[in-house]
C-alpha cells in the first residue's frame, strides 16, 4: 500500500502524455462509470482501467489496487443485495435486480478508484503542479498545497507504521486479528502523528520559503509542458468513453 503513491519511472505512452491529460483521462473514466448504466459497458471500463495500468507499466499496482478494493466491494455487494427489494426473487430475499444493481455499484467503485491512483503513480507531483500552474493557470500557492498534501501521504503512512512498530515493541497488541480492537488502539496514536506532522510541515514550509517559494510565478518553470498528438488522441479517447457511456 505504501509504495502505491510512489512515483514509478518509465518510458511508456502514458508517461509521454501531458500531466494534465493524464488527470483528464482518469476523470473521464470516473465520469463514464457514473454516467453509464450498462453492466457490460462497466465491465469494459474496468478492463480499460487495467489496460491503462498495462500501458503505463504499472499493471502490478493496478492489480494490488483491485485486491485492496475487494473487501469493501464484497461488503457493499452484500448490503446491496440485501436491501434492494425490486425484481423477481432468485433466492431467499435476493432479487435479480438487486444482484444487477449490486454488481453495478461495485464495478463503479472499482472503476472510479483505480485510474486516478494509477495516473498519480506515473506522474511526478512536481510535474503535475508545474503543468497546473503553466497550462491551467492555477495560482502556484494552490497547486503547491495540493501537491504537498499528496506528497505527504506516503510519509505519514511511514510515520504511522513507525509509531505502531514502536508501540508493538512495547507490548501493544497491534497484531491482533480483531479489527475493531485494532482501530481502538490506533486512535490515541493520531495525536503523536498529528504533532510530528505539524512539526514536519512547518519545517518544510520554512525550507520552501528559504528557497524562494514566495517569488515563484507562472513563468518560473524551467520544464515546459506542451501538448502532443498523443494528448489529442487521449482527449479523443476520453470523449469516446463518455459518449459511449451516454449512448449505451
Amino acid at each position: 500500500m505504501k509504495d502505491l503513491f510512489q512515483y514509478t519511472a518509465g518510458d511508456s505512452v502514458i508517461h509521454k502524455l501531458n500531466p494534465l491529460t493524464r488527470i483528464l483521462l482518469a476523470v473521464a473514466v470516473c465520469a463514464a462509470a457514473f454516467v453509464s448504466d450498462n453492466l457490460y459497458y462497466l465491465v469494459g471500463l474496468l478492463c480499460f482501467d487495467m489496460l491503462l495500468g498495462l500501458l503505463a507499466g504499472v499493471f502490478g499496482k493496478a492489480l494490488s489496487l483491485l485486491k485492496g478494493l475487494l473487501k469493501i466491494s464484497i461488503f457493499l455487494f452484500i448490503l446491496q443485495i440485501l436491501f434492494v427489494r425490486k425484481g423477481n426473487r432468485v433466492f431467499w430475499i435476493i432479487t435479480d435486480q438487486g444482484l444487477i444493481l449490486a454488481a453495478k455499484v461495485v464495478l463503479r467503485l472499482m472503476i472510479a478508484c483505480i485510474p486516478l491512483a494509477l495516473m498519480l503513480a506515473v506522474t511526478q507531483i512536481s510535474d503535475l503542479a508545474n503543468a497546473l500552474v503553466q497550462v491551467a493557470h492555477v495560482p502556484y500557492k494552490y497547486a503547491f498545497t495540493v501537491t504537498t498534501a499528496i506528497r505527504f501521504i506516503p510519509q505519514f503512512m511511514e510515520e504511522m507504521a513507525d509509531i505502531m512498530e514502536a508501540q508493538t515493541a512495547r507490548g501493544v497488541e497491534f497484531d491482533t486479528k480483531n479489527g475493531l480492537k485494532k482501530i481502538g488502539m490506533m486512535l490515541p496514536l493520531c495525536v503523536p502523528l498529528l504533532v510530528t506532522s505539524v512539526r514536519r510541515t512547518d519545517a518544510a514550509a520554512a525550507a520552501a520559503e528559504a528557497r524562494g517559494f514566495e517569488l515563484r510565478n507562472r513563468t518560473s518553470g524551467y520544464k515546459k509542458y506542451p501538448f502532443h498528438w498523443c494528448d489529442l488522441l487521449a482527449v479523443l479517447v476520453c470523449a469516446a468513453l463518455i459518449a459511449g457511456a451516454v449512448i449505451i
Partner: protein
Amino acid sequence: MISIESLTFQYEGSTEPAVKDITLNIEDGGFFGIIGPAGAGKTTLARALCGIVPHHYKGDFYGSVTVDSMDTVDSKMTDICRVVGMVFQDVESQIISSVVEDELLYGLENYGIPHEEIEERMDFALREVGIEDLRYRTIASLSGGQRQKVAIASVIALRPKVLLLDEPTGELDPGSSRQVFGLLKTLNEKYGITIVVIEQKIMLLSEFAKELAVMSGGSMFCHGPVREVLKRARELEEIGVNCPRVASLAQNLHKEGLLKTPVLINVDEAEAAVRRLIS
C-alpha cells in the same frame, strides 16, 4: 560578511530565550564551526543567520543580525536566503520534489535564474557534490547520505555567498561525514564560499574549521581560532563538549612540560609530536 550584535531571541509561547546576548563576527571566506550540547541554541542561531528567525519562526527578537550589509529584520527573507543558503537539520523536510533534478530546479526557478544559465548551474552543483549519476533518480530510492548531498547540491546551485549547514553529518557514517566535510573544504577554498557549520563531531570540526564557536545554554561560551578554543579543553568538557583525544593528549604532555604547544588538532600533528618526543 555576517555580524551579530547582542542577539537574544525567544520563540513565541516559550518561557525562556533560546539564545541570549550573542555577539559574533563571521568573516568573508571563513570556515566557521559551531558546537555545543543539545539545547544550546545552535539551531536557533543558524535560523537567525538566514532570516528564518524572525521571519518564519516568530518571537521576541532583540539585538541585530547583519548579513552582507542587510539587516535581517528589515530585509525580506528571500533576499537574505539568496546570500545565506541553508541546509536544514531534517533533510527529509527540506526536500520538496520527488526527483533529484527537480529538487535542484526548485530554488533556481523560484529565484528567477535565467533559463539558459540553469543547465550550467545544475551541472556545477551536481559535479561539485559528486552526484552527477543521481540526477534522474527518485529521492525515495536514495540513501541518507545521498539525500544529504542532494540537499547540499540544491543549495549550492543557487551560488550563495555563505553556506550554512545544521548538523549535516547527523545521520551519516564516519566515512560519509568526512566526505561531506571534504566537499565543504573544496567549496570554501576553490570558490571562496563562507562555510558556517553546526556539528557535534568535534574531531571533524577541529580538523576542517578555521574558527570555532562553543555555545552552552543559549549563550556563547567562547569563540575564536580552533587552536585557541581547544586550549580550554577542560572547561569544554565541563559544559558537555567532548574534545578530540589528541587535544587531551597534548594538554597532558604540555602540563608535564614535554610539549611546548598545548594544542594538537589532528592525528598527523600528534604523531609528529610524539615521534619528536621519543627521538
